[in-house]
């Protein structure tokens, strides 16, 4: 696997839209080719070379390409957008849309990310070692297809509206989350190892939510069913199972109504 290293030289005045920073676009290109790829700062089209020093070269395909982004890129959006294979390592914090519409490969951010990370994610692995913002793994505005598959792991806390319209895949937040978890979800699994606040699983049709810590206010449409012993992300424990959201429509399968499942650790 070949490695391309991008080191930010100076901070953009406005935010930089760098949707070309993906293994798919870099594949088969030399450092000079990569430096001449375009990015946007407001309405100005600029080159990546204006803000980044590019070293190394890309592999022949996306799968053979690893990108290391060095320096503070907290004013750079769309890193890893639509990437399908290969690897990206961001050594500090990044801005919005990290791994948006990601289709495969592995993206690691050592710092924090802002909102809309893993938006409409279709597959792959997204690891955020710091905190994530709002709308993690959610659907793009108006889309009824949120996260489809893949894994998002956040080692810190996450914001509100995570996993909105989620259809599949797994989101693991090791810290706490803000309001609205898995709203409108029709599948997938969300694991919150810290505390939740309120509006957890509102309007959920199908899917699973696990909360290890406290829930401030339970949605009224969740009904206690039973206690179950489970192993969730390597942690064994007893969980209280709730079915819901009873205010929402639910499909029938094999004569049984399918509910969203909310597990709270006891």
């Amino acid at each position, binding site marked *: 696997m070949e490695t391309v290293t991008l080191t930010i030289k100076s901070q953009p005045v*406005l935010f930089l839209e760098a949707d070309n920073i993906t293994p798919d676009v870099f594949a088969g290109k030399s450092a000079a080719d990569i430096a001449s790829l375009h990015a*946007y700062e*407001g309405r100005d089209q600029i080159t990546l070379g204006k803000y980044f020093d590019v070293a190394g070269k890309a592999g022949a395909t996306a799968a053979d390409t690893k990108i290391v982004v060095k320096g503070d890129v907290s004013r750079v959006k769309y890193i890893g957008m639509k990437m399908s294979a290969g690897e990206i390592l961001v050594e500090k914090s990044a801005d919005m849309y990290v791994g948006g519409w990601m289709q495969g490969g592995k993206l690691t951010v050592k710092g924090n990310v802002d*909102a809309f990370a893993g938006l409409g994610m279709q597959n792959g692995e997204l690891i955020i070692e710091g905190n994530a913002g709002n709308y993690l793994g959610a659907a793009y505005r108006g889309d009824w297809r949120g996260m489809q598959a893949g894994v998002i792991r956040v080692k810190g806390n996450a914001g509100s509206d995570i996993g909105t319209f989620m259809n599949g895949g797994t989101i693991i937040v090791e810290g706490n989350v803000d309001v609205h978890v898995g*709203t409108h979800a029709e599948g997938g699994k969300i694991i919150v190892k810290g505390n939740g606040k309120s509006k957890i699983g509102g*309007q959920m049709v199908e899917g699973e939510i696990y909360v290890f810590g406290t829930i401030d206010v339970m949605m009224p449409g969740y*009904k206690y069913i039973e206690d179950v012993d489970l192993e969730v992300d390597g942690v064994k424990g007893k969980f209280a199972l709730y079915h819901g959201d009873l205010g929402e429509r639910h499909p029938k399968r094999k004569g049984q109504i399918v509910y969203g499942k909310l597990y709270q650790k006891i």
Partner: protein
Amino acid sequence: MTKSVTDVICPFCGTLCDDLEVVVSDDGKTIVDVYNACAIGAEKFMHAQASGRVTRPRMQQPDGSYKEVSYDEAVEYTAQMLAKSKKPLMYGWSSTSCEAQSVGHEIAEQVGAIVDNTATVCHGTTLLAVQDVGIPSCTLGEVKNRADRIIFWGCNPCHAHPRHMSRYSIFPRGFFTNKGHKNRKMIVVDPRNTDTAKMADIHFQIEQGRDYELLSALRVALRKEVLPDTVAGVPKEKIYEAAELLTSGRFGIIFFGMGVTQTLSKNHNIDEAIMLTKDLNEFTKFSIMAMRGHYNVTGSGQVLGWQFGYPFCVDLSRGFARYNPGETSSNDLLRRGEVDAVFVLGSDPGAHFPISSVKKISELPSVAVDPHITPTTEVAKLHVPVAFVGVEVGGNCYRMDNVPIDARKVVDPPEGVLTDEEFLTRVNKRVKELMEA
């Protein structure tokens, strides 16, 4: 002798009353009196006559004083600012005509601006919910003639839309509601005991920020499922009763305002309210409508919608329309430092935005186009006074139920004062020259 102008449209709130009578002096230059309007609407007309009105553009000087400049200089400054900027914010648009909005959008397209209207701090969340789940709505005429179950959720029309209840929702005697308010059941959901709440048959004084839970609970009740003992501070018996009351009506409507759109859960509150409306349609006819604030904020959404496909927060910086409130919304842009110039027309962000955003406006090159002196014109580098739409110039406006109504001119603007549309047309021409150069 005075003369009376009838069927005047009121350019204040989204109710867009169309039955005002304005008495003007014989020479047609001054407004003497306004009939049929609410106190706020009448004041809007009388204010146009106020002494000390600014009638020429003013440029703020480094020491905070103002220097009068000509409209030509104001056009040049505005055009230069927009043409030089990489990502200007063009905000407001809710207190002007659709014709002026359209010219503004042409400028925005040329300079790659972000066009956002007051919905961003108002009913923008409603628009997000509508995009997610659709909306079963109706016109205010249908409410007047048919509705017998009226819900006001997080809104206070007594003060914000003073003639709404007398013209459309509670008191009028309509075709199928010939006993007026005696035909209707009024439910108010509000944590505060407002003047609207005092009139209600049922007032749910809920815990703050628990609207989402109560809306969800009503849906649970409609499905005859079990509820916890209390939801949002309301006992479950009351919720089952309310569900029964709603389903027993012939035609129901939910009106909602800032109390649900801008409190915890925001768009999800509206999403759930729309889904409740859909569920209620299994039992009877039900509709839902946003209590839009500015008289033409609905029009701004309409014009942006048919021109760019999105009703607010439209980012044209890359030459095509993009939209994602949270990123392309005015306060997020200002707070994060994503824009490098601000143009405001037909709104007062200085009074309504958080102080962190207003500070950013004051630090950036900025132009405010507004007939009044407002907190925004005080922080903007250039203040361009214009004629009052609906008083001194006509133009198309949309009522809160998306019905277009042509506003009328009643008197002439002060000598030499341009209208929004005239000023924007001149800026547009100059921007075109600068961008082509």
